């Protein structure tokens, strides 16, 4: 699931299109010109209200031939990630890290191989057959986990608030801003995701068209939000299994809830690895947009603003 801006990245579409009607300038004052994709890219940027940071149409060289589109920048800045999302994304990173780290300190308690109840819950196996027990002693030693339970509990029950509040704010923001339209999987997302994955694995060529996120990203990002919600619910059912025992029971009981909480965390770790890998592959322009909010895109690329408003 590449975060690559689509468009093969290298060739920026030649924008100055002589075949198009020459009246782009005359049209440009219209503030809300809705761009239907059918009118193939006449004068980009200039008439695009969303091209927030387009430089003041720079010294428009008035050339002799008046029937021509004046030269325009081939690239523009796309407001890709709103400020709120960037903040919440980056706040979540160390907070989730702290939750996982403190969770490991707690979990160490129940994972001591030497004693009589090894891994009743945290293992891969069926019935009495255990294929993998989590985790081996060298792992615990490497992360210096033994006997730091109180620290783990203290941090876990401190940062859970930040994790929960940040998550609630994030989802609320998605709903209010319309950003959810860019992120919730669509009908075609599954097929797209398969295609994207095959392309990523160099098994097939040709990325499907995408707006902000491709199908694989939509599915991944929507899932990780659901996983966060799952972590909160399973966490609560472990934290207060008597007071909210109906939730605990719905989740399959206390031990099941712990198992689910654990594997959701493993899911976060897997997501993290793929996510970071893809960000590295997607390159600087994409990564920068998660910090500054803006991505440099071909001027002709339709703005995301419309999708935010209407889907």
């Amino acid at each position, binding site marked *: 699931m590449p975060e690559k801006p689509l*468009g*093969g990245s290298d*060739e920026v579409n*030649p924008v100055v299109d*002589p*075949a198009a009607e020459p009246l782009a300038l005359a049209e440009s004052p219209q503030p809300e010109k809705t761009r239907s*994709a*059918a009118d*193939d*890219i006449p004068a980009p940027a200039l008439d695009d209200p969303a091209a927030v*940071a387009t*430089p003041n149409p*720079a*010294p428009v*060289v008035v*050339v002799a031939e008046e029937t021509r589109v004046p*030269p*325009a*920048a*081939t*690239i*523009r*800045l796309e407001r890709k990630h709103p400020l709120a999302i960037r903040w919440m994304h980056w706040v979540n990173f160390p907070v989730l890290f702290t939750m996982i780290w403190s969770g490991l300190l*707690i979990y*160490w*308690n129940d*994972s001591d191989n*030497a*004693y009589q*109840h090894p891994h009743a819950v945290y293992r891969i196996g069926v019935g009495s057959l255990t294929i993998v027990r989590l985790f081996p*002693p060298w792992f*615990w*030693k490497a992360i210096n*986990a*033994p*006997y730091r*339970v*109180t*620290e783990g*509990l*203290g*941090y876990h029950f*401190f940062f859970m*608030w930040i994790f929960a509040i940040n998550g609630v704010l994030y989802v609320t923001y998605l709903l209010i801003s319309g950003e959810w339209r860019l992120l919730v999987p669509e009908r075609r997302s599954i097929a797209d995701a398969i295609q994207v994955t095959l392309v990523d694995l160099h098994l097939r*060529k*040709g990325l499907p*068209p995408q707006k902000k996120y491709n199908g694989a990203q939509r599915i991944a990002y929507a899932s990780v939000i659901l996983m966060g919600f799952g972590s909160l619910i399973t966490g609560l059912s472990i*934290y*207060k*299994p*008597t*007071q*909210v*025992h109906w939730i*605990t029971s719905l989740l399959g009981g*206390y031990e099941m809830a712990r198992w689910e909480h654990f594997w959701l965390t493993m899911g976060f770790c897997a997501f993290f690895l793929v996510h970071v890998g893809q960000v590295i592959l997607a390159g600087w322009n994409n990564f920068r947009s998660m*910090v*500054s*909010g803006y991505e*440099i895109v071909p001027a002709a690329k339709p703005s995301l603003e419309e999708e935010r408003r209407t889907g």
Partner: protein
Amino acid sequence: MSDGREEREEQEQRRKWEKEHKDPDRYHEEAPRDWERDGDRERRDSQAVEAMDAEVRAQSAKRTRRSFLIAAAAAAGGYSFYRWIDRSPGDQLIPRPLRKMLNFNASVSRGIFEDRGLAPTYPVSRSMELRTNGNYGLKMDLVPDSYRLQMVGVANAKAFPQYVDDVTAWEYQYAAKKDAGPVEHDTKVAPKADTTSGNGSKAKADPNSDAGAGEGPMMLGGPASTMSADGGDKKAAEVKMPPAFEAAFAALKKSQGNKRPRGQEEAGMSDNTLDPGTPGLLLKMEDVTSLPHRDLVTEFKCIEGWSQVVHWGGYRLADLIAKYPPERNPDGTLPKYVYMETPDGDYYCGFSLQACMHPQSLLATEMAGRPLAQWHGAPMRLHMPIKYGYKQIKRIGLIAYTDMQPDDYWTKLGYDWYAGL
């Protein structure tokens, strides 16, 4: 690595793909171009275009610089926040912000749930013998006939036949352990010995293990196993005290009748250990067993992470409290807390009165249909499914009503006082 041919092929492929999947938003499609006619003009325009592109990039660079500066400041802020927590002075062995948050969480939990939820119960067939974990306060067998339950703070205590002027004067009789029981490793706190790794070899070095056998140094009047002086305490033992202090200490010991000091485990002596001369009741087991008998099959949950369904038999703590109710404060309110302790004062727990009044808070005398074993806390221990196991004190020697939040063994070692589930 990519030559032009490959790229052209890829573009061709994509165009085909897009045509097949008719997407209204496509924007890549280029109108056919007349290269000959356009060539000149493009050369002329290209400089202007480049300048404008450069302007866009400059804009981007400006935003990027600003954003990364803010990001760096935020990262520094976040790290300082972590450092502030981590380096805060400790409050009962964890940084104060963490302790405050535990207390805050407790009040949120009390506010929302009021500790009224009932734990689910299970069929007896699902239950099993509880694993033993922690033998603090149980290092020797208690002679059953010598058992008395001390109750302090009971209303109208003098009216009860069990009233005595000094409950602390009662002498419990101990015997060497007949059967150590399946005493297991406790991971809630690091052993005092220097082996702190979590792997197999430590099992033997675990300083708690001697306690199970009942032959540790503590049996001989020495310190309890977890404080064994062959660890890091050697230096402390070598410190020479002034003779005046030594004399005063010896006098104090003598005045205590050379009794074994209380609070010999890692958390030390409880602040709530009774002063000599505290009046109260000395109940016999019959006073408890005359209450209505109850059975309860609930899931026992240890903060270490494990849980077991256990079949308990015993008496409601609420019934005992009703029989021996707390003395009201001068303003007519009930004391807010209950404090419990093992007879030797090594292990102790504090509770809210409300938690003790919970209908599932049980003074357990039986487990799995059999009388409690010594290592499970005979003759009477607490089972409280609204709390973690570390609150479910074994071998209860004292139940005291109090209006101040009582001391708690594991709280002193960094755990939550509330421990509510």
